[in-house]
């Protein structure tokens, strides 16, 4: 009977022990679970925090960094901010976000170039049409100018022609900025004509003073004529725009060692260092032009100069200040773009200023000779020869300037002493005196008798004869 309680006791003890063991295990696992839960909760919090930071970082990328990067392409001075939390900068996340910006920049640059090219093509087409139409209008206006000389009508025609020139200039530079050709083929022309022609395209052309120190006949090869006229017009426009309306803009045309130099000085405010650098960059034409870079309203002048200097091997310098206080612009035309026109056969335009060289020469050489110094610098002094011989065409065989006259002036070769021209009143007075003298003689002889009258008549006739050269001269003068 003992075995049973023993068994029971043993069983109970075993049960208790196992219960204790189980309870301990349970407790331990409970504790472990709690620890794990705490760890999980901590991790979850950390994850939440990281997620929040990540969302905030991406949000910041979208809200701040991407727009800034896009703006920076158009405006280089815009700064792109770094990540919101600086500690991301060195993490893979920071790198990935920077990659986003890089890809965006690349794509935007490509798109921008494509869109700009499309805009330029569209504008090129439109301006080309406008330019052609304005040339037709110019032809019509000039035809009318030739045809009608009523002052009021002529005044209107002059004004319209000037307006048309200005519109033409704008259309032309817009086309040139968009990569088009200058749109007009010209023949070889005097350089001073190209400069004066450029001057005429501006609203303030009255304020421009051109001083021509070139040897007569200095000309541009045909393909350089229009570009030089455009560049001069744009430089003058800048000068006129940035100087006071009561100041002059001075243009000097001079020979330099390897070409001709057109210097444009204004007495304006000048440019700041930044403006000067930007202008110099634009006129150098080394960077491609984007319409979106030109501002609104677009400032096309310098960009057009840049295109032309690159295409035609001209050079423009804006880096030095003018002695008059404003800007000095120097256009250098290389000698391979120069040629020579016989100024006698094809004189420069009437409104183009004379060469100062010729005036000096005429001033000294004219003294007592009866041969009239003719209008367009035929004669050149030796200095001029020395300077221009490098890039000038062949000169006369002996190397000596020849004085020739135009075919029109085929005055008698015999040295007829030229009478000074007489005023109409003087001529009338002389003829009146003659008539009254004749009448007086007639009446006088009439009183004395027939024979004397006959003699007097003969005398009168002789006096007429004496006077004939004079009347002939009048007739000759009239042609």
């Amino acid at each position, binding site marked *: 009977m003992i075995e049973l309680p023993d068994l029971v006791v043993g069983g109970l003890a075993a049960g208790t022990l196992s219960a204790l063991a189980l309870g301990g295990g349970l407790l331990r696992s409970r504790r472990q679970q709690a620890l794990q839960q705490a760890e999980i909760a901590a991790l979850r919090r950390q994850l939440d925090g990281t997620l929040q930071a990540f969302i905030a970082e991406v949000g910041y990328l979208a809200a701040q960094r991407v727009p800034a990067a896009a703006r920076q392409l158009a405006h280089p001075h815009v700064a792109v901010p770094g990540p919101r939390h600086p500690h991301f900068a060195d993490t893979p996340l920071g790198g990935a976000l920077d990659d986003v910006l890089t890809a965006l920049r690349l794509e935007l640059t490509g798109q921008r170039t494509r869109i700009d090219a499309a805009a330029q093509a569209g504008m090129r087409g439109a301006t080309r049409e406008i330019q052609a139409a304005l*040339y037709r209008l*110019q*032809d019509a206006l*000039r035809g009318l*100018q*030739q045809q*009608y*000389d*009523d*002052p*009021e009508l*002529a*005044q209107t*025609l*002059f*004004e319209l*022609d*000037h307006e048309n*020139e200005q519109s033409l200039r704008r259309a032309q530079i817009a086309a040139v900025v968009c990569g088009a050709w200058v749109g*007009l*083929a*010209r*023949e070889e*022309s005097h350089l001073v*004509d*190209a400069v*004066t*022609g450029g*001057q*005429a395209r501006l609203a303030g*052309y*009255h304020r421009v003073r051109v001083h021509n120190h070139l040897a007569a006949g200095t000309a541009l090869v045909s393909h350089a*004529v229009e570009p030089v*006229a455009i560049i001069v017009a744009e430089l003058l426009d800048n000068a006129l725009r940035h100087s006071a309306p009561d100041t002059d803009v001075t243009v000097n045309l001079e020979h330099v060692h390897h070409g001709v130099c057109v210097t444009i000085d204004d007495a304006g405010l000048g440019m700041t260092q930044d403006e000067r650098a930007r202008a110099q960059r634009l006129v150098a034409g080394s960077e491609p032009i984007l319409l979106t870079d030109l501002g609104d309203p677009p400032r096309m002048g310098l960009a057009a100069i840049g295109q032309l200097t690159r295409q035609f091997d001209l050079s423009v310098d804006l880096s030095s200040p003018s002695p008059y206080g404003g800007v000095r612009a120097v256009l250098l035309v290389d000698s391979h773009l120069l040629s020579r026109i016989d100024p006698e056969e*094809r004189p420069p*335009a*009437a*409104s*183009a*200023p*004379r060469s100062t060289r010729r005036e000096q020469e005429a001033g000294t050489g004219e003294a007592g000779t009866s041969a*009239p*110094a*003719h*209008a*367009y610098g035929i004669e050149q002094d030796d200095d001029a020869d020395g300077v221009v011989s490098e890039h000038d065409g062949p000169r006369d065989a002996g190397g000596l300037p020849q004085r020739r*006259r*135009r075919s*029109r*002036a085929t*005055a008698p070769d015999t040295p007829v002493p*030229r009478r*000074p*021209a007489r*005023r*109409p009143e003087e001529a009338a007075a002389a003829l009146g005196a003659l008539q009254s003298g004749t009448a007086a003689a007639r009446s006088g002889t009439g009183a004395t008798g027939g024979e004397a009258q006959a003699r007097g008549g003969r005398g009168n006739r002789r006096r007429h004869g004496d006077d004939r050269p004079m009347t002939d001269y009048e007739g*000759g*003068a*009239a*042609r």
Partner: protein
Amino acid sequence: MTGRPGGRPLVPAYLSTGGVARPSRPQLERLSVLTGTGEPAPGDLPAAQLALLEELDGGSLTVVEAAALLRLPVSAVRVLAGGLIDRNLVLARAPIPPAERFDPDLLERVADGLRALKHN
């Protein structure tokens, strides 16, 4: 301005007079005769006026001839000449009236009469 071969002129006509087309001497006509007075040209003479004055060095010219030589419209030359006359550098004379011409009708009638006589 059409005299130059090949192409439009570079320098427009209005530049020659500074945009003025109303002459100071409205009586100048296309055939008015201009003569230089021979006085020395002042240094400040505008280029186009100087060009006209120099054209007149070789003798007298009518306004329209000077316009053709200078390749300018007549209206511009009238303004230039007006300026020169005002400065006493040029004299202008009224156009010489064209000689009396025979009436073409009369000439035809005479010719017809002569033919009629010949046939008779």
